Each structure stands twice: as C-alpha cells, then as structure tokens.
C-alpha cells in the first residue's frame, strides 16, 4: 500500500476521534509551551539584571565608604557602609591622573509633591559632573550648576517620568515642587533614558545640588563631623588604566584619611569588573535555577506526552487487530501510527511553540511596578523543546503500535 493510503487512514482516524486527538495535542502543547515560557521569562530576568549593570559604563570606578571592621572587599548594600567620604575627598582626588570626571552622588528614595499630587522617586544629590557620568540628555531648561552647589540652592532637575506624571504636557521649568515640605524650583527636565535597576526606573529620578541634599534633605555626618558623600563616581580615560588609577586613589585617600601601616581602608574602590563579577555570580545562580526549571518542565512535559501517547495507542490494540484481520500488513500499521503521531506532535508542537512565544510576549507587557520583565525567547530552547517533544511523542506513540503490530491478529482483537 502506498503512503497516500496510509495518510488517508491516519487523517480519517484523527478526525474520527477528535476528542482523543485534541487531548493528545493539548498534552504536547502544554509541554512545549510551558518550557518555552518559563525559560524565556527567566532569561529575560537574567538579561534585565545584566544590562542594568552594563549601562553603568566600563570606564567608571566607584569609590564607596566601607566599614573597616567588615571582612571581605565591599558590599553593594548601603547597610554595611558607615559614612567616611566627604567633599574634601572629592577635591583631593582631583590630583589623580587619567581621571576625566569626578562625580559625588548621594542617593535616597523620596516623595515628590506638586499641589495635592505626589509620587515616589529616586533623589540624587549631585554636582554638574553628574551628567557626564550618568549620560542623561536635557529635555528643557538647564542642569545643576557649580553656583547652585556653592549656594545650596533649592533647585531641582526632574526625570522624564516625574515630569510627565506631575505636570502632564506642561513644561515644569520655572514651576515649584515640594521635597520634604520644602519648596524647590524646577530648572530643567531630562529626556527619557529607559531602563531600570532593582525595580526603579531611571526616569523616576529627581536631582538636587549635593550640598542641598546634605544640609536640607538627608543630613548625615562622618565621624569627623563633616557632610557625608555616599559615593564618588570616577570616570577614567581608559579602561586599561583601572589598576593604576585604583592604586593612586587608594594612596591619596589613605593619606587623606590618615590611615597608616596595618589600618584597613575605610573606603573601597570598585571597578566595573568587580561589579560585573558579583552580578555574574547572581546571574549564574539564576541561570542554574533556570536550567533546573527548564529541565523539570521538559521532563514533566515529556512524561505527559509519553503518558497520553502510550495510553491512546495501547487502547487501540483492538483496532490494530481489526485492521490486520482485513489485510493490513505490519508496515501499514506502523506507517499509520507514525503518520498519526507525526501529525499530532508536529501540529501540537507548533501550537505549543506559538503559544509559548505569545505567552512570553504577553507576560512581558505586564507592568511590575514601574518596570517590565522583557522575556528573551531564544531559538535554542524553542528548537530543544520542540525536538524533544517530537522525539518523545513519536517514540511513545510508535512503541505500543509496534508491539501490537507484532501480535497475531486474534491476540490483538482479544486484547483487553
């Protein structure tokens, strides 16, 4: 018998048993779809975290306060830091060679109020150098000036989301906002930059002069009674000079902080490589976790497919007996079940791929409090889940058919 005949039989059989066919396909759809969705969402999380750090720039060193009692290098968590840096340190560091920009930045969460409306944002106390480091573009007005810093002026630059949320289409420049019940005049607004870190959008930022931050908003003193600086971003001329510049910063700050001999540093110089190393560890854990999820869901999906194929083909042993009794050869039976299993697994697998990709896309649209988790659907997982499901589907569909086709017709007919 020709393939056309087997195809006719296979298609007739699938159509005659719509419920069985759809249930089998559903098993495959869920198997393939869930693997693709889970892995894509996980990879999205991974990519979001990595890119947030990569945005920081590779020629940027961070000088941060460090508790000298603490073991280890440094921590990203401010809770472990005691204030040790000051604006004097910033001025002292101006002597370091190969430095393009020095930008002290203080940071805290804050509520911004205009009239009766308020919203949360990220407050940065900064100097004019801030913008060279953070790479924002002005949308209107101007940035913080040296004069603002010297005068502890009550001026503020708004991030694009803050501006649109509080002023709609109106230009906020010249308007007043309140931070901690104090009036600030808006002098400029920023273009949208996109991106987020730890759930806070980069466009939810408000920037005031660092001196204003230190004296009027979040005063904090070092042990010597000076206004504290939370971090100093150091932009260097070339990434190859990282080690040299780091050494020089350490020498100058140690002298400036009067640290001698065995005294431990009360600050840390963190290179992007070190940050990426820590981020790398985080994403490695995440990736391992993801691999586990993918493996488990692929296993569960495969068992589901295997289960439904084994059951639906085994219960058709009698049908195989009927077919053999009227003259079907073994290869006719095998070809029919192969074609049926192929049709089910390919169509089911295809729908599974489509629904996995669509679901990942839909989940990417969800607003998770200010930022979105963009799923990363990569071809490898699509190909892997599709081919594993098809292999499992064909193998577990063919095995009982192969077994039944070897029986005497009468034994297949009497199969219970």
């Amino acid at each position, binding site marked *: 018998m020709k393939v056309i*005949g087997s195809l006719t039989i296979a298609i007739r059989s699938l159509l005659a048993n719509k419920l069985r066919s759809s249930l089998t396909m559903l098993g495959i759809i869920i198997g393939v779809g869930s693997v693709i969705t889970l892995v894509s969402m996980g990879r999205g999380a991974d990519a979001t975290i990595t890119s947030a750090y990569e945005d920081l720039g590779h020629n940027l060193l961070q000088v941060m306060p460090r508790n000298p009692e603490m073991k280890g290098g440094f921590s990203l968590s401010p809770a472990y830091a005691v204030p040790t840096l000051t604006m004097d340190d910033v001025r002292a560091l101006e002597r370091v060679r190969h430095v393009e920009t020095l930008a002290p930045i203080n940071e805290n969460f804050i509520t911004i109020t205009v009239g009766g409306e308020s919203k949360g944002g990220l407050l940065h106390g900064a100097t004019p150098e801030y913008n060279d480091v953070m790479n924002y573009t002005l949308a209107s007005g101007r940035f913080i000036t040296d004069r603002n810093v010297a005068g502890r002026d009550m001026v503020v630059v708004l991030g694009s989301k803050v501006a649109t949320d509080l002023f709609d289409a109106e230009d906020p420049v010249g308007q007043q906002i309140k931070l901690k019940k104090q009036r600030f005049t808006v002098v400029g607004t920023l273009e949208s930059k996109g991106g987020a870190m730890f759930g806070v959008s980069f466009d939810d930022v408000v920037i005031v002069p660092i001196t204003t931050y230190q004296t009027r908003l979040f005063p904090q003193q070092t042990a010597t009674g000076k206004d504290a600086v939370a971090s100093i971003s150091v932009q260097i001329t070339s990434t190859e000079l990282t080690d040299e510049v780091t050494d020089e910063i350490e020498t100058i700050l140690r002298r400036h902080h009067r640290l001698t001999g065995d005294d431990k540093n009360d600050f840390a110089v963190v290179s992007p490589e070190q940050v990426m190393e820590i981020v790398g560890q985080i994403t490695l854990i995440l990736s391992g976790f993801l691999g586990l999820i993918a493996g488990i869901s692929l296993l569960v999906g495969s068992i589901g497919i295997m289960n439904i194929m084994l059951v639906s083909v085994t219960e058709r042993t009698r049908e195989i007996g009927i077919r053999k009794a009227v003259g079907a*050869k073994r290869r006719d039976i095998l070809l029919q079940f192969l074609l049926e299993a192929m049709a089910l697994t390919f169509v089911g697998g295809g729908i599974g791929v489509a629904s996995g990709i669509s679901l990942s896309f839909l989940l990417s649209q969800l607003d998770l409090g200010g930022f979105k988790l963009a799923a990363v659907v990569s071809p490898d997982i699509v190909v892997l889940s599709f081919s594993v499901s098809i292999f499992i589907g064909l193998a577990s569909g063919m095995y009982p058919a192969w077994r039944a086709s070897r029986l005497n017709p009468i034994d297949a007919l009497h199969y219970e």
Partner: protein
Amino acid sequence: MIELENITKIYRMGKMRVNALMGITINIQPGEMVALIGASGSGKSTLMNILGFLDKPTVGKYTLEGVDASRLNDNKLAVLRNKKIGFVFQSFNLLPRTSAVSNVELPLIYGGGRQRRQRALAALERVGLTERSNHKPTELSGGEQQRVAIARALVNNPTLILADEPTGNLDSATTAEIIAIFGQLNREGITVVLVTHEIDIANQTQRIIRLLDGKIASDEKVT
C-alpha cells in the same frame, strides 16, 4: 479448496499446556457451505481463526487453493486475509466512530485498487444497507452492524467467507436474515464456513463438522 492436515494448536498458559486442537484433518471443496459445531471449548473458534490466518497452528499443514500457508510470511498472510478471505465475527469488530461505508472500504485501502467508494457502496447494496451507508456503528442495530461486517468481508470478492458465530448476538428474526445472506453468497459461488451452536442454522448448510475436545467427532452431509 481447503486442505487441513493434522492441524494441532497448543496454548501455553504459564506452566499449563492447553490442547485446543489435536490433529484436525479436513478437506473442503470449492462452493461448499459448511457448519462447524461443538460445545464451547471444543476448539471450533480456534479452528476458524487458523482457517482465517488470524492465528497460526502449532503443528500441521494448511493448504489454501494449492498454496501451502505454513511456508508464508506475515506479509503474504496479510495479502491472503485481504484478497481471498472475508471474516465475519460474532462481535462485528467494526471501527468505532467510522461510517459504515468507510468500514467497508477498509480492505480496499489495504488491498489497493480504484473506485473504492463505489465498490464499498456496491457491497453495502448486496447486503441491503444502501441507505445507512453514512451511519456510524453506534447508530446501527446489531443486525445492521453485522450486515456492514458482511459487506466488508465481501468487498474484495473473496473466494472464502468465514463466519464465527455471526448470529450469536442477534435475535431470531435478524438471525434468519443474516443466514439467508450467507446462503445467497454461497449460491453465487463463494465457499462459506460458519461456526454455530444452533443446530437449526447448521441444518441449513450442506455439511456439518462436529468438534469435541479438539478432535473431529463427526463429519456428515446434511440430507
């Protein structure tokens, strides 16, 4: 037409050996209509299955139309089941959720050939079931299902029709109709062997072979 020589069938059930058939030797001529009778367990169904190549004898030689079947492989036996023999079961054995005409068409798909649908409809007409051709087995009465099964047995113009208690699940009126169809087919030249335990039905054939405990107890012409 059919020559059986010392056909023996032994089943192994665990350590038990069941002798279902012990040295059956029969000759059936072309155009004969034969009834196989005997109590249940006498081996008549086993013999039918061997005659229809649904099962293989443990020992013995089966020659169909001069061809020694014991030398044939599975594919050749499938061709014999398809072209030479029409088998009718007590429990009909139709494909569920499949229309009558598609069921009848099945042997033609495996046997090849053209105009399958027309030939299937023609076979249904021979058993008087033209109007019900698109009904599924569940929508048909027992008698109608058995007619579909007979049409399926007929569709490839076999020389031999084997019927294993074809009326076992039917009422007496329907039984008479089905037996009449077999009589008609036999008059058209097809050799018919049917298993029954009803002596009334056996008496409508030309020859009665009685089995007892896997052996032939009697073999006589109906007068």
